[in-house]
């Protein structure tokens, strides 16, 4: 009996040391991959940041309105943000490669899935950035045109235009990375439809007079006499 227990313990010990002997090199390899990956990612981060600073990327982002949005969202400057994204993408790639070396069945295929996810994520980021740029351009164009055309509440009108473009870009980006696709699309359709219906009802009920005046102005029954306007030239 005692002999049996001793054999079992010895066998367990042998098995343990076999497993350790088998895993230890893999762990060391994983640790090396993660460490080297971190160094490469860090180096890439600084290289990307240096290139962006050299190419005045922040100035470009200021021009197209991305910097203002990042500032509002309390995010870092564009060059820092892009270099951080590069760092994390590269390092997570190395991290998953390292984990794959361990040979855990549950983690198998993560690298492949990550490799498939990265392009979609990049496209989603591009869509989001393009959406922010378009939203800012549309906001500014609407605001300035509304002010010069004496449209009441120009900031409300331009803000609504910006929100609409941003929501559309956000929905497209989420759809691209396939995050809760059904929920996102359904929520977007319901919210968009509700807003439009609400606006239509509000305008129809509360702004009937305004609508009539606008239509009368656009399509007058008798063309009005040209009123002489003050000339600036």
């Amino acid at each position, binding site marked *: 009996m005692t002999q049996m227990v001793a054999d079992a313990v010895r066998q367990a010990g042998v098995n343990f040391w076999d497993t350790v002997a088998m895993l230890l090199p893999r762990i060391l390899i994983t640790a090396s991959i993660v460490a080297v990956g971190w160094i490469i990612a860090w180096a890439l981060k600084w290289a990307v940041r240096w290139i962006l600073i050299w190419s005045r990327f922040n100035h470009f982002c200021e*021009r197209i309105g991305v910097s203002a949005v990042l500032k509002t969202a309390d995010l870092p400057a564009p060059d820092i943000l892009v270099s951080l994204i590069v760092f994390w993408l590269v390092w997570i790639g190395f991290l998953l490669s390292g984990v794959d070396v361990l040979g855990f069945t549950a983690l198998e295929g993560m690298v492949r899935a990550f490799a498939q996810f990265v392009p979609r994520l990049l496209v989603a980021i591009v869509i989001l950035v393009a959406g922010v740029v378009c939203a800012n351009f549309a906001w500014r164009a609407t605001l*300035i045109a509304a002010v010069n055309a004496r449209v009441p509440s120009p900031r409300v009108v331009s803000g609504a235009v910006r929100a609409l473009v941003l929501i559309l870009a956000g929905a497209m980006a989420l759809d691209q990375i396939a995050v809760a696709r059904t929920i996102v699309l359904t929520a977007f359709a319901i919210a968009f439809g509700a807003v439009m219906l609400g606006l239509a009802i509000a305008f129809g009920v509360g702004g009937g007079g305004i609508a009539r005046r606008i239509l009368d102005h656009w399509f007058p029954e008798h063309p009005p006499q040209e009123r002489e306007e003050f000339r600036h*030239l």
Partner: protein
Amino acid sequence: MADESLLSDDLLRQLVATGHVDILVGVPTLNNASTVVDVVRAAQGGLGNYFPRARALIFNADSGSDDGTPTLVRDATTDDTGTVIASRPLRTAHRITTPYHGLPGKGSAMRMIFAVADLLSADAVVVLDPNVTSMTPEWIPALAGPIRDGRADLVAPWYPRAATDAPLVTQLVRPLVRAAYGWTLYEPLMGECGCSRTFATHCLESPAWGTAVMPENVDVWMAAEAMAAGFRPAQSALGVRLVGPSRKRPALPDVFQQVMDAVCACLDLHESYWLTRGQAEPVPCFGTLSGAPESFGARPDVAGMADAFARDVAALHPVLETILSAATLAGVTAAAALPSAVEYDDDLWATTVFEFLLAYHRGVMSREHVMQTLLPLYLGRTAAFLMRHASSGPATLDAALESLCLAFERAKPPAAALWKKA
């Protein structure tokens, strides 16, 4: 040498038949039937009265009018107008009217006029605005005389201006062009002008044709080009300038955009010249302005402009933040705080304009957006000026406008330094 591709074979035949002319009067038209006859008669009267011995041609370049303008130009005579021609002309003033092809706009017409002047070796070229209703025969010698006498290469007009008359010129374009180019030119947006053949040929050979500066912005470009290229500018006193009703007048934002685009395009083009110019030199003035300036046409709604200024500055604050410095924005916000008594002083206005130019130059946003954002501030400044000077006498008004020009001259050096760094 004239680019003969600008001139059709038929036109060339007519020009060859005309031969050399001493004075070419160019009239670029587009649907000006209601006013062009009086302009042509004034030109004929001016040529007959003041240049009876000169060989002259009245040349109409039409941009495709559909209201019979070319026919009216061809048929216009002085006989039925009661225009008195003091000395009987010894030579016939030829008249040619022709359509031009290419890009629509005054620029293309002017290019054709320059080509004709070059081909016919005209000593003096006078360009008239066909929409002016107050033109008299005296405008012709005023514009052509200094050229014929060899005293100038470009003669700009000089009109008496009331406080409410053309504020876009008096409040913005005049002081800006004067400060930048360093010449005291009163009317950089020359509706009418006279120029020498040398200058016409220089304009004709300019690479600016086909660029963003042309074809709409030819007037201000000509004035700027003359100053930048070392030609001798001058200005002649004309009478009051009244314009007739045009069939479709563009809205103020469009006019403002076009004028400011023209000025900015010229500043880009002549960067190496104006950045080194110092204090403004006087441009010789010929003649004297007769009578006190009067106000014509619709009166401005000054109170409405001031109210709109307060609202617009508040609405545009996030856009203004990206264009103006903190100090200037604070000044503009304070100026707009009291709509009943807007105080937008000369120095603040000059700094505002130069900071907008820098934003335009740096491209901090779409250039169209930059200039459209300046429009409400221009209206605020105009309201402030009119509140103070709407009923001022000519001397006070002249002093106020001179003070504004000096404020622009003071604001230029720091702006020029930043422009160079940008």
